[in-house]
């Protein structure tokens, strides 16, 4: 498990299957805490689901620094394409020796993911795919063309 654990799925993530594999691969590695985060598509604003584009070269690049942590292991999966209400589009798990580092890394990782991962979200509504611009934020490095 020295390799990068970033998994990309077309459509909803098979959450339990992925957690099962991660758990069994890592449970004997001496980590005392495994903290997954499971992002489920909510039935907000009458949507049927969400849809995602992602740019894998920069997503992998972004993930590398999290993969290089010494005192924690992070595994992650994300969807592209359509993910319906009740399905999961984002799944990660933080592995640490003790729980408190786990809480810290979970929050830092997910917030960094939200701010920096090159992923674009669309609402699926009345059969249309509409960019969720109200929930999107420019990347921290954005604006040099402005």
């Amino acid at each position, binding site marked *: 498990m020295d390799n990068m654990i970033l998994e990309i799925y077309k459509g909803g993530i098979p959450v339990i299957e992925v957690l099962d594999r991660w758990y069994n691969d890592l449970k004997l590695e001496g980590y005392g805490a495994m903290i997954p985060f499971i992002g489920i598509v909510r039935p907000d604003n009458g949507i049927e689901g969400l849809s995602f584009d992602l740019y894998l070269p*920069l997503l992998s690049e972004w993930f590398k620094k999290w993969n290089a942590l010494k005192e924690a292991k992070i595994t992650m999966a994300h969807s592209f394409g359509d993910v319906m209400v009740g399905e999961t589009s984002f799944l990660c798990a933080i592995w640490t020796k003790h729980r408190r580092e786990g809480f810290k890394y979970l929050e830092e990782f997910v917030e960094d993911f939200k*701010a920096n991962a090159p992923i674009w979200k669309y609402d699926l509504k009345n059969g249309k795919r509409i960019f969720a*611009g109200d929930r999107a*934020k420019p990347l*921290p*490095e954005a604006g040099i063309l402005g």
Partner: protein
Amino acid sequence: MVSVEFLGPIQMEKKEFNVQSVRELKDELYKIPELEDWLESLAVAVNDKIITSLDTPLKDGDKVVLLPPVCGG
């Protein structure tokens, strides 16, 4: 020529530009009306590294991607 790819919600095919720097590319992009609402919120990556200076040089074969506001998860 430098290839420029518009990611995510920007509905535009990949284009090629004959430019020597990101500053020159910026001037070209401002000539495209469909990009007007996007430009100030874009991040720029050259050969898959995000750059932060308009003076970044560009050479033949470089690959630029433009990244609109993100929202993963």
